């Protein structure tokens, strides 16, 4: 599963530069959490378009992830990019004060969508392309909020597993503190992805690689060194989250229907 970092960096920096320019953007914008994915994506973007063409938004909720905020600011300093810090607590609290819940996932989803809502607002204000930071692991198991962190203009990270993002981070010289942090979606203080999913990223990526990249059937995958229960769990996560990877189905009525047989490329005319 090891990747050729030199080649991947070249391809992804070309991707950011070309797709962003083709869509008519000079500027790019990213939501920076102080975690691995958004940091690596920022490093790639600076290589692609230069620090002057990347703007970061750091959007904490209360003091849920103070270390993340500190690290995100450090990344901006290292890369020489402009950023703004926006506390999303007032609007999130305003909503939940009248819509009570103690379900942390509901709160987390709302926060993710609030952050994306701000990113889209800034995108329009600044005429900047939103860089997505969802990696292949998250996309495949659906570990992300639809219209929240899963939304973006373009996604340079979506074909790299989390462990491969880690490898690329080392190659790009991302600070050790960020590499060593336990991945967190910041849903509540002290939350970690691996605890929530119930698998380590290493286990998860190994199973996904067998099922997706090597196209093994469940039976074939189970016959390797993988644990049956975990393989079945991951396969079920993939199946159940397909809706997060697609535009929603349109009810077909006419001869030619958006989403069915009105088929144009994304880069139409570009």
């Amino acid at each position, binding site marked *: 599963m090891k990747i*050729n970092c030199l080649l991947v960096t070249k391809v992804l920096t*070309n991707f950011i530069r070309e797709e962003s320019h083709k869509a008519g953007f000079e500027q790019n914008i990213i939501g920076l959490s102080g975690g691995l994915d958004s940091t690596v994506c920022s490093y790639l973007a600076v290589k692609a378009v230069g620090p002057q063409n990347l703007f970061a938004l750091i959007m904490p909720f209360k003091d849920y992830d103070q270390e993340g905020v500190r690290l995100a600011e450090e990344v901006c300093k290292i890369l020489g990019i402009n950023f703004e810090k926006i506390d999303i607590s007032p609007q999130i609290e305003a909503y939940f004060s009248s819509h009570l819940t103690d379900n942390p996932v509901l709160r987390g989803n709302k926060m993710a969508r609030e952050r994306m809502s701000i990113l889209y607002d800034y995108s329009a204000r600044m005429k900047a392309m939103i860089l997505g930071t969802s990696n292949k692991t998250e996309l495949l198991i659906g570990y992300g909020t639809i219209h929240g962190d899963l939304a973006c203009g373009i996604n340079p990270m979506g074909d790299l597993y989390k462990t491969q993002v880690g490898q690329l981070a080392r190659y790009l010289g991302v600070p050790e503190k960020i590499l060593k942090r336990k991945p967190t979606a910041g849903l509540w203080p002290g939350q970690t992805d691996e605890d929530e999913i119930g698998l380590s990223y290493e286990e998860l990526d190994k199973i996904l690689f067998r099922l997706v990249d090597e196209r093994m059937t469940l039976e074939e995958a189970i016959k390797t060194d993988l644990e049956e229960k975990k393989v079945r769990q991951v396969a079920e996560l993939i199946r159940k989250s397909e809706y997060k990877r697609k535009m929603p189905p349109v009810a077909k009525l006419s001869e030619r229907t958006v989403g069915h047989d009105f*088929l144009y490329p994304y*880069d139409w005319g570009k």
Partner: protein
Amino acid sequence: MKVAIAQISSVLGRVDKNLERHLELIEKAVKEKAELIIFPELSLTGYSLKDLVPEVAIRPDSSEVMARLLAASKDIDLVIGLVEERRENPGIFYNSAAYLSLGKIAHIHRKVFLPTSGMFEEARFFARGHDFRAFPIGSNRTGLLICRDFLHYSSSYCLMADGAGLIIAVSAAPGRGITDEGSQCFQSSPNWELMGQAISYFSSAYVIYCNRVGIEDGATFAGGSFIYTPDGQLNLKLPYLEPDFSLQEINLDLIRIARKNRPYKRDDRPEAIWRSLGRLIRVQDED
């Protein structure tokens, strides 16, 4: 003969913009005294067309675009990629490559093998071509292949059997595979070189491969165009992933020398191949 390879990207669905780019590079190649310039697969339109196919199609006998390229071909031979709609077969669209020479269409090859699996969906939008045919250019015979055609070695065999000393494969091959740590290229790229070396050597023919670069809908076209001599020697290699315009002198006498020294062409037995194919097709039909 001096050959120019235009390893370019295209604007997706914009024939007007692509034509201008073609004409610029043709002018440059003429200034450099090249006798042939080769553009990639679907160079006039871009690759990931989907429903744009009918909208960007060109009728070779009446198109203004073709007229301008034919005019340019009075100074230099051209290989261009287009969506072709024939007057006698309206509404049917081919992924075609045209060889233009001396103001005329010397040959149009319609892609036979349309990849339609995984990320590819060509047969959804294009009709299949039916023939591999070499055609005379000067004192030599030339054959055209389009991308996947070249990865089916039977295609090149047909051109060799038809006497081609120059096999030109144009391509829009996206790169895939990133786990080969020491490499400069996608893991899919060396397959083309493997085929280029084998086909050039065993056909005693020049193989010129022109692949495009750029990105469409997230897929990166891999570049890495090349020329192999009729001895199977690498004669020119363009960079991976980057746009490029390269000129290379090729010596068509090497075709004769290679065929004299290693008589694969002389000893070829198309009738035995034909008999074998005839038998296996009959048997398949009976199943």
